[in-house]
């Protein structure tokens, strides 16, 4: 008898626990959704107000994860904001979340096409081949893939890639980092030679290489003696590995400032624990790291969604490769956290941003960095006697050969994201040391 009563009690307790868990999580998630919607609205700047008839439009979105991933949240917010801005009703757009990078992506895309979507977006690199497969099967539906590389070689009228010149945002973030280093040198906290930054990267992929190099060049533009160590985690999201990587960079390698290109809070929180200044990515981490967060850059996908949906509605051609810039509002930097940043950072960034926009400054200006070439590294580069980069055959067309096919250096700078939207800068420049290249 006692046993059964105890079991029943136990069951009731478990049930009530589960019920509490369920009900308390609900308001939290709606609150977060409201917040993000509000944030998305407030970032809407000047919109081009041309009226296009949206009544026949239906839009499908495919996301790798759900709101719990910062990467996907950035896309989800942009998707919802763009649809609202274009005056679409809720039954005019469908979000498919947690779609893996496999046949499921094709199934999801085909299912959205069956449901009458005129245009379908996917957000993850690994979705690309499956989107192409669907694009071939549904020639009347537009397929847009963020971060992909194959649109310009596939030659399909209804398949498109998009990215943003995020290297400009990274460069600006780098300037803020360089100014912080200068302040630390002035205060006597570090020597000029001790100005060493650490960078936690995901993969040795062009997108990451382009990102950390532009970040470094931004810092170098204001703090010439800076050097940087880069370590790779081999994952886009691995909180433990990223935290450990930041820890190692700070304690073993003597890095005095950290930045990262991976999607978890691992590196920023480690910096906060150790009191080391941090430049974040994908959005502000100031709430979790009030004392060390300097600035962050991110891609805002809303302008692209708006552009592509509008073009589709108007029956116009969508670019095979669309690269968002500072001007289109696709590349954003967050507010500077005055508590961590050097004084005058905001003003300086405004100035550099203007120079990037009018073309008087180029991020990959070959006058600003040198390259060492040997049998294994930078094999596609041509370098003059002083180490200056004079030519580079970039691997713009994706194939299994890894061979350079497009000359990317001209007019004294490396033309990033011009021959296709996804980054292809994968040089190793002097001053940056790769600690563990995972091959």
């Amino acid at each position, binding site marked *: 008898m006692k046993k059964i009563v105890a079991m029943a009690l136990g069951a009731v307790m478990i049930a009530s626990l589960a019920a509490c868990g369920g009900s308390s999580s609900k308001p939290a*998630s709606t609150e977060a959704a409201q917040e993000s919607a509000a944030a998305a609205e407030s970032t809407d700047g000047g919109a081009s107000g041309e009226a296009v008839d949206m009544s026949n439009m239906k839009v499908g979105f495919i996301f790798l994860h759900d709101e719990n991933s910062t990467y996907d949240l950035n896309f989800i917010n942009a998707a919802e904001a763009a649809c609202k801005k274009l005056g679409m009703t809720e039954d005019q757009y469908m979000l498919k979340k*947690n779609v893996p*990078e496999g046949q499921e992506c094709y199934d999801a895309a085909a299912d959205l096409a069956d449901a009458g979507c005129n245009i379908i977006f996917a957000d993850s690199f*690994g979705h690309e081949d499956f989107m192409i*497969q669907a694009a071939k099967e549904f020639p009347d539906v537009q397929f847009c893939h963020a971060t992909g590389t194959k649109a310009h070689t596939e030659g399909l009228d209804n398949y498109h890639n998009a990215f943003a010149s995020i290297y400009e945002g990274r460069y600006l973030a780098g300037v803020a980092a360089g100014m912080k280093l200068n302040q630390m040198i002035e205060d006597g906290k570090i020597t000029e030679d001790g100005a060493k930054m650490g960078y936690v990267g995901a993969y040795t*992929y062009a997108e990451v*290489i382009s990102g950390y190099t532009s970040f470094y060049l931004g810092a170098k533009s204001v703090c010439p003696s800076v050097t940087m160590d880069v370590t790779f985690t081999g994952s886009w999201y691995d909180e433990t590995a990223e935290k450990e990587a930041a820890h190692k960079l700070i304690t073993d390698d003597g890095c005095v400032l950290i930045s990262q290109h991976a999607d978890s809070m691992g590196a920023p929180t480690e910096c906060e624990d150790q009191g080391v200044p941090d430049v974040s990515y994908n959005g502000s981490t100031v709430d979790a790291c009030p004392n060390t967060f300097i600035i962050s850059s991110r891609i805002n996908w809303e302008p692209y969604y708006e552009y592509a949906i509008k073009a589709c509605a108007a029956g116009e051609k969508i670019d095979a490769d669309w690269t968002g810039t500072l001007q289109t509002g696709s590349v954003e930097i967050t507010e500077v956290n005055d508590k961590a940043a050097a004084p005058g950072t905001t003003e300086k960034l405004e100035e550099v941003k203007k120079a990037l926009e009018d073309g008087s400054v180029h991020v990959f200006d070959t006058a600003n960095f040198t390259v060492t070439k040997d049998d294994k590294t930078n094999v596609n580069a041509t370098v003059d006697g002083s180490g200056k980069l004079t030519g580079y055959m970039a691997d713009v067309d994706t194939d299994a050969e890894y061979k350079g096919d497009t000359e990317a250096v001209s007019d004294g700078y490396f033309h990033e994201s011009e021959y296709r939207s996804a980054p292809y800068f994968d040089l190793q420049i002097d001053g940056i040391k790769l600690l563990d290249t995972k091959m």
Partner: protein
Amino acid sequence: MNDKKGPLFHVARRPHMVWYKAWGIRAIALILALIACAVITTLLTGLNPLDVYATMIKGNLSTPRRVWVLLQELSILLCISLGLAPAFKMKFWNIGGEGQVLVGCLATGAVMILLGDKVPGPVLMILMIVVSLAAGALWGAIPAFFKAKYNTNETLFTLMMNYVGTQLMAYFIIVWEVPKGSGKVGIINQASEAGWFPMIGHNKYLLNILIVAAVTVFMYIYMNYTKHGYEIAVVGESQNTARYVGINVKKVIIRTMCLSGAICGLTGLLLVAGTNHTITTSLAGGRGFTAVMVAWMAKFSPIGMIFTSFLIAFLSKGATEISTMFGLNQSFADILTGIIIFFIIGSEFFINYQIRRRSDGEKEA
């Protein structure tokens, strides 16, 4: 209360229940589960539960494509469950389905990448079949060998083999990645389609479904009408009995795990050559574990597993549709699935046991 009388309620094993009564109890459990889900849905989201159920059904059946995808998902889950069932029936806790599927995927992908343009199509296909089955069988045989030889704990061993399989996959993805540094292989042989299963008509999934149907028939016969199947049942009931009647227990364990792993490896082949045409670490997607539940719920009967894998596949597709249509988090849909499975597993208790009041045999009640 008097000790001699015993507790007010007590649980007793039921004699074997006729099949229609058992299925009646299961049906009642399903209805209760749906009512519980409806109450929770209304309380937490304010949605009309009937709309939610309608969406769940629509998500599976409203277009021919959705039906095919459901059948494909069912087949994959069923195929892994068919692989696990003989091991479980032998009371060898093989929770390494995930890893066995992944090495099958890896082996298939390796042949497609390395030999895709070097050998003629039929040879390539035969190689893919042989290599994927062998890889899965090996992944099953290793823990079985150590279990038979040194009596190691097979639960931990097969679990660890999952991680080894995943890391092996991760390593080779980096070796074959396109473009460089991306950590992705992309679709293999997209232009030549070398090593891809042929489509039947215009259908991508039919061949996979037919293969799994054939495996189901084979396993049904193997488990019920062959000497091997009988040996598995005896070893599962009692190893001592098996030894006493002259069954070589070690041999049966290793042989059965080879078969178990090989069928999981075959699932890997279906996933890579039949549908995905790429290799990633998430190809098995947790189905190696879900299949344990599928097999248990069906009591390792191949025919029963058709229904249980249908149920799980239906619920999971329906759950995804709910989260898409109502903008709910996927976790909510998972909660509903969890409740339904809880009730169904719970109903087995009432099929196998009955609760008696103390009054049995006494007149006072």
